[in-house]
C-alpha cells in the first residue's frame, strides 16, 4: 500500500488538489428555477475572504504603479507642457459663463419636468451624491470584465451602486473592500442593466458578448430599431437611475438561438476601455444645491414676462379649443388631473391643459369608427384605450415597482403611455 502511494504520489496530489477545487466550485454555483446553472451573485464568507486577501496583495502595488503613472503625467501636463495655457484659460472662462446661463435654463426645464412627473405620480430620483474614484487595475482576463477602483467601504461605497462617467454608465459595484472596490462593467457577459431605446420605447436587458460589446439581448424583431438610436437606462433594475445615457445602437443582429428575436449591439457612450476616473452614485434623492436654486430664481426673474406671455397664450388656446364645434363632449367624465396629451413630445413645454388642469380642458369625442385618415387613430389607438396602460412585463423590472413609473422614460415623460389617450 505504501509503495502505491509512493509510486503514484504525484498523481494523487494532483487529483486531491483538483478535487478540492471542484468541490469549492460546486459550492459557488447554484441552480435556477429554470434548471440552468448560474453564478451565485453573493460570495460566501470563505470566497470573500480569499478575494479580500488577493485584493490586499495586489491593490497596493497597483496603486503605487498607478500613482507613479499619474505623477509622471501630471509632471508633464502641469509643468512641462504649458504652452497656450493662458489663451485656453480665457476660452474656458467664456465657456463657463455660457454654461452657467445654459444651466439656469436647463434647471428651469428640470423643474418643469419635476412638476409634470409629480402630476403623473412619478417618483423621480436625481443623482444626489457621488464619489469620484480612480481606476487602478482589472481582473486581467478578457472573460471577466471587471476593474478595481481606489475607493471602498471606508469611502461610503456599497454593493450594487451604479458607476458612471460624464458620458454614460460604466457598470456597478460588485464587491467592496475597505479601500478598494470591484466594478462589473456593462460589457461583461454576466452583467445586466435595464435599458430602453429612446425613440421606439423598447425595453431590454443589456449585457456583454464574447467580443466585449454591450448588447441588448432577447428582444422581438422590430424593424423600427435602427443604428444611431439612443439607448438610456430604464431604471427598472433599481441600480441605475433612469435616463442615464448608455450608448447608441450600432447594429442589429439576429439571435443565433431563437427565431424572431434579435440582439441589438450598442456602442457604449462611456469609453469603457479608457476609464481613468469614474463616479460612484452613493445615493439618489431629489435635490438642488443652493447655488442651483439661486440660478433658478434668477432664471425665473429673467423669464418672468416671457412666462406670463406664454401662459396667456396657452389660456387663449384652451378657450378656443373649447369653442370648436364637435370636438367637445359635454357628457364626458372629467379628465384626470394627471392627464397629459398624447401628442406631447419629449423636451417640449407642457401644454396648457397639463399646466392648468383646473381651467377645464376640452373633452374630446371618440370617433365611432376609427379610420385611417385621422392621425393617431385606427390600429395605433384602440377605442377603449382610455384605460390605464397595461403594466410593463419586461424581464428586468421587479414586480414590486409601481408599473406606472416603469412606463416612462428618463429625462422625458413618456406621455403616450402614461396619459389617457384622446383622439384629436
Amino acid at each position: 500500500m505504501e509503495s502505491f502511494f509512493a509510486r503514484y504520489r504525484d498523481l494523487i496530489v494532483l487529483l486531491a488538489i483538483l478535487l478540492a477545487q471542484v468541490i469549492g466550485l460546486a459550492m459557488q454555483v447554484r441552480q435556477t428555477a429554470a434548471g440552468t446553472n448560474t453564478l451565485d451573485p453573493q460570495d460566501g464568507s470563505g470566497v470573500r475572504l480569499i478575494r479580500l486577501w488577493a485584493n490586499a496583495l495586489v491593490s497596493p502595488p497597483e496603486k503605487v504603479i498607478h500613482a507613479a503613472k499619474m505623477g509622471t503625467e501630471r509632471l508633464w501636463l502641469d509643468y512641462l507642457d504649458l504652452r497656450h495655457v493662458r489663451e485656453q484659460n480665457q476660452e474656458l472662462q467664456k465657456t463657463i459663463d455660457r454654461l452657467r446661463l445654459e444651466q439656469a435654463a436647463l434647471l428651469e426645464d428640470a423643474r418643469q419636468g419635476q412638476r409634470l412627473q409629480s402630476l403623473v405620480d412619478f417618483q423621480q430620483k436625481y443623482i444626489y451624491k457621488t464619489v469620484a474614484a480612480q481606476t487602478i487595475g482589472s481582473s486581467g482576463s478578457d472573460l471577466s470584465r471587471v476593474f478595481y477602483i481606489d475607493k471602498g467601504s471606508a469611502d461610503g461605497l456599497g454593493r450594487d451602486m451604479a458607476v458612471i462617467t460624464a458620458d454614460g454608465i460604466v457598470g456597478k459595484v460588485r464587491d467592496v473592500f475597505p479601500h478598494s472596490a470591484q466594478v462589473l462593467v456593462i460589457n461583461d457577459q454576466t452583467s445586466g442593466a435595464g435599458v430602453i431605446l429612446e425613440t421606439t420605447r423598447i425595453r431590454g436587458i443589456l449585457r456583454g458578448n464574447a467580443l466585449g460589446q454591450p448588447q441588448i439581448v432577447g428582444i422581438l424583431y422590430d424593424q423600427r430599431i435602427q443604428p444611431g438610436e439612443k439607448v438610456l437606462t430604464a431604471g427598472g433594475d433599481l441600480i441605475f437611475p433612469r435616463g442615464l445615457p448608455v450608448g447608441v445602437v450600432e447594429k442589429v443582429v439576429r439571435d443565433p438561438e431563437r427565431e424572431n428575436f434579435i440582439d441589438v449591439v450598442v456602442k457604449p457612450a462611456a469609453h469603457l476601455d479608457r476609464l481613468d476616473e469614474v463616479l460612484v452614485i452613493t445615493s439618489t434623492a431629489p435635490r438642488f444645491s443652493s447655488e442651483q436654486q439661486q440660478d433658478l430664481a434668477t432664471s425665473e426673474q429673467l423669464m418672468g414676462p416671457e412666462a406670463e406671455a406664454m401662459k396667456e397664450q396657452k389660456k387663449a388656446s384652451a378657450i378656443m379649443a373649447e369653442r370648436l364645434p364637435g370636438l367637445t363632449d359635454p357628457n364626458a367624465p372629467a379628465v384626470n388631473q394627471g392627464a397629459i396629451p398624447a401628442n406631447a413630445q419629449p423636451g417640449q413645454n407642457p401644454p396648457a391643459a397639463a399646466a392648468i388642469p383646473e381651467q377645464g380642458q376640452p373633452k374630446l369625442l371618440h370617433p365611432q369608427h376609427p379610420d385611417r385618415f385621422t392621425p393617431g387613430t385606427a390600429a395605433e389607438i384602440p377605442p377603449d384605450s382610455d384605460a390605464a396602460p397595461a403594466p410593463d412585463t419586461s424581464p428586468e423590472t421587479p414586480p414590486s415597482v409601481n408599473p406606472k413609473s416603469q412606463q416612462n422614460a428618463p429625462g422625458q415623460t413618456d406621455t403616450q403611455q402614461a396619459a389617457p389617450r384622446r383622439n384629436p
Partner: protein
Amino acid sequence: MSVLDADFRRNLEIRRYPMLVYALVPLAALVLQAWLPWVLGRFGRYAWFDLPVVVTVYFALGRPTPIQGTIMGAAMGLFEDALSHHPIGINGVAKTVVGFVAASAGTRFDVEDHTIRLILNFLLSLLSGAMYVFVYRILLGLDLEWTWFTELFKAIGNSIIAVALFPALDSLQIRD
C-alpha cells in the same frame, strides 16, 4: 503512465533561484496581468497574453517533481480567480493541470533548449484556455461565449513574451 511515476526521473539539473525570485516574479506577473491590459487603454482589448501561465510553465519546467509545478499552478490560478468575479477555482483547475503537465514534460524533454520551451509554452497556453472553457461550460454548466481565435492569439502572445522572459529569468538562477 510512466510519466506519472515518481520514480521515473531523468538525471536532471535542478534549477534553483533566490527565494525573492520565487516570491516576487509570480506576484509581479499577477499584478502586471491585472494592470497592463488596463493601462493599455483602447489597446487593452488586444492584450492577448497570460503572464501567470508563462511564469507557471517556466518554473514548473525547471522543477524535478510535478508536485511543485502542480502547487504553483494551483496557487497562480486561484489568485487570478480571486481577482475576477468568476467562481474561485476555474483558473485554479486549469493552471493546476498546466503546472502538472509542464513539470511532467520537464522531466521528459530537454528544457535547456529554448525552442522546446517555447513550443511547450505555446501548447500549454492552449491547454490552459481549453481547460478554462471546459470547466466553465461543461463542468459548471454556465453560459460563456468565447472564440478559439482569442485563445490562439493568447498562446502566440505568451510565446512572444517567453522569448524575452525565459532568458531573463534564466539569468537569475543560482549557479554553483
